[in-house]
């Protein structure tokens, strides 16, 4: 990952910047409205997301970049049904699924207050400037 940042640094003009977007290691959650059904089982994804954060820190430590700005935001994907979200996670995530406990809680929430379920991830974005 640091090698990729190093390569990007070579390609970017000295007046330019590198933008990094990646999920934080916070748990991805299934929600119905603002009620939490539970976490998504993301397998090894949490470790990969932490590794991305560590790579940015290492690039700063190696004086490749300075972090000029950073913020976090929520990224949600809404489905019509929990099955649709389950399929989305299966198809688009490297690994992961909605486990039985989260599924049961989310189904109960939907019975109590019908709506569109969603999966919500916490994402960090960094603007890196060359040193």
């Amino acid at each position: 990952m640091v090698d990729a940042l190093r390569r990007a640094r070579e390609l970017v003009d000295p007046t330019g910047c590198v933008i990094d977007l990646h999920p934080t290691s916070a748990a991805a959650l299934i929600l119905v409205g603002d009620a939490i059904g539970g976490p998504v089982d993301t397998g090894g994804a949490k470790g990969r997301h932490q590794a991305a954060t560590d790579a940015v820190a290492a690039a700063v430590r190696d004086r490749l970049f300075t972090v000029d700005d950073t913020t976090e935001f929520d990224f949600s994907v809404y489905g019509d049904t929990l099955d649709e979200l389950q399929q989305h996670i299966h198809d688009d995530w490297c690994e992961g699924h909605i486990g039985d406990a989260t599924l049961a809680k989310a189904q109960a929430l939907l019975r109590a207050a019908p709506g569109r379920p969603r999966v919500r991830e916490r994402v960090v974005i960094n603007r890196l400037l060359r040193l």
Partner: protein
Amino acid sequence: MALLEDPEHNEWRALSRMVPSFAGLRVLEIGCGDGRVTGLYANSAASVIAIDPKTESIDALRAEWPAVDARAVGIEGLDLPAHSIDVAIFSWSL
């Protein structure tokens, strides 16, 4: 109804905070997938090179954004001159 991604536009707002205007900029997007992030700025950038090792993702991006120079390659195999990019975006790909 299909899946709805980020209807709150939080990703767009965050990207706009980092790069207030893409006008005139040469952009390289690394790990572009099918172009969800590309679509946030492609119409305003001077040029866009979008790369992803997955051929099927690149095909999908080309279909949606024909003006984008989409390449099925990772950053380690990308042949570009030094300092030829204004903004490089790691799109959920680091």
